[in-house]
């Protein structure tokens, strides 16, 4: 195993039952410490199954998953693995248990037997990192969806994870909530060097990752930087996926005889591209 591989997946296959088609079908890849990797794929492509294999909620039918050097199949390490690679799910209402934000973050720490003297410091730090410290005394059910997800993330952070796995954590949020959660996780990645696996349907979110994995039929079919991935507009469409709107615009320009680059991910890129294509188009 290479020294830097933080999450290592080797020849991984997973079947929900022995007779069924493989939900994950011979997948290998490795993710380095501190990487931010987005995983794309249509419903049923195996994204969520992969997420649950990455922190040992599911165990491989064959092949292996290693987290910080620990194999998820090693039953003695299950709790270490779940603490090392924390998972955030889609529905913000199913993840919070306490009647106060602070207690919700404390809940996980009590479960893993953190000494009570150490708890307040860790809870405050986790709430500060997610921008939720000022809401510590509020009732979780009164928070917005984005705030609830940030509390769920704080609950994991308090356990000092090395990786975060987010399974469509923004799918049920409004645009503001989505931005709050993504910005929080991007910051944790940058500042705390936490490895992130970000599973999503939103192409604009994937465009902000360092690396994108595309899944189809339980296999990883594309793996590269977002510019490289999204410029393959036709292949993505075959895989029942979108591209970000500005990449689609670049494609439409090409169809109209303009030699636009396809690795345009956002509005700022497109302004630059139009300026490059036609410096003389500016009104005088």
């Amino acid at each position: 195993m290479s020294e830097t591989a933080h999450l290592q997946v080797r020849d991984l296959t997973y079947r929900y039952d022995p007779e069924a088609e493989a939900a994950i079908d011979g997948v290998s890849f490795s993710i380095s410490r501190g990487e931010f990797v987005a995983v794309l794929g249509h419903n049923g492509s195996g994204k969520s199954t992969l997420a649950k294999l990455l922190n040992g909620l599911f165990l491989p039918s064959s092949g292996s998953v290693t987290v910080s050097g620990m194999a998820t199949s090693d039953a003695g390490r299950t709790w270490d693995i779940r603490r090392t690679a924390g998972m955030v799910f889609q529905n913000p209402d199913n993840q919070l248990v306490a009647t106060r934000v602070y207690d919700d973050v404390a809940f996980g720490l009590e479960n893993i037997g953190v000494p009570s003297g150490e708890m307040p410091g860790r809870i405050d730090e986790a709430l500060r990192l997610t921008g939720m410290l000022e809401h510590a005394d509020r009732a979780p059910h009164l928070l917005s969806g984005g705030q609830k997800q940030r509390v769920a993330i704080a609950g994991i952070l308090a356990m000092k994870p090395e990786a975060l796995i987010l399974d469509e954590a923004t799918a049920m949020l409004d645009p503001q909530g989505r931005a709050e959660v993504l910005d929080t996780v991007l910051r944790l990645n940058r500042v705390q060097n936490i490895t992130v696996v970000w599973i999503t349907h939103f192409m604009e979110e994937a465009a902000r990752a360092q690396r994108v994995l595309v899944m189809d039929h339980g296999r990883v079919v594309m793996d590269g930087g977002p510019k490289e991935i999204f410029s393959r507009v036709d292949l993505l469409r075959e895989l029942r996926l979108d591209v970000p709107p500005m990449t689609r615009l670049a494609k439409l320009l090409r169809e109209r005889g303009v030699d636009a680059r396809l690795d345009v991910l956002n509005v700022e890129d497109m302004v630059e591209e139009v300026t490059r294509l036609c410096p003389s188009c500016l009104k005088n």
Partner: protein
Amino acid sequence: MPIVLEKLSHVYKSGPHTSHALRDVDLTINDGELLALIGHTGSGKSTLAQHLNGLLQPTSGHVLLDGQDINGKDSSRRALRFRVGLVFQYPEHQLFEETVYKDIAFGPKNMGLKEEEIDARVREAMAIVGLDFSEISKRSPFELSGGQMRRAALAGVLAMKPQVLVLDEPTAGLDPRARDFLLEDVRRLNRAGTTVVLISHAMDDVAKLATRVAVLEKGALVMDGSPLEVFSRHERLGAMGLDVPQGFRLARLLREKGFPVSDRCLLEDLAGELADLIKGGSGHAA
């Protein structure tokens, strides 16, 4: 069958606390339009939607359907609910029958229709949303994919043949293909004459589909116009925490730099204009 909201207000009370979910909303929803209702979370969109078929009653003001107050004494709210079909957020959470067929038949059965009519409506509704009758009608709704469950729930409302269809965030949580299927269903229904009220945060979808956009802020109607009119007020929308479609943001940034580009709702139209500009511009010496 226009729906007219007159000075519609709704106040939620819980204990000593009251909150105005809607304040004096005046809005007419015309036959055949596809009205998008947008606003920040908590702006009152879903509360408004639930007034359209009498699920909620106004604290003050009126909801008129064909000129008749739906909450009036002589009005049959039951009959009205069948004319205005409401598809909630995550409607698949409300699937409950043991087969897809029974689930879709539930509404028409409640309407007291005959067995043959119910059967015809279930088949028709499934065809509209693209669910294969022979393959899917006898299956449990819980065996379906997320996108199929959503379409089955929509079919259950369509089987009541509503004249007005109200959809609250219909594409939330769907993958791109399932989303495109569903939006195509909505567009087809609208073209066939069904009035549609679409509540959505997805501004690119709104730009693509809507014939008119109404904006709620803190329970008040603050904008009402064509998508082009509403989205060109991007600064005001931004202050409310609302996005504009990326094509609008691009056009604005290009104009600020000095490119002569207009606001467009569809990326296809924007691409056409940009292509003409670039091809024309690069033909001349700068």
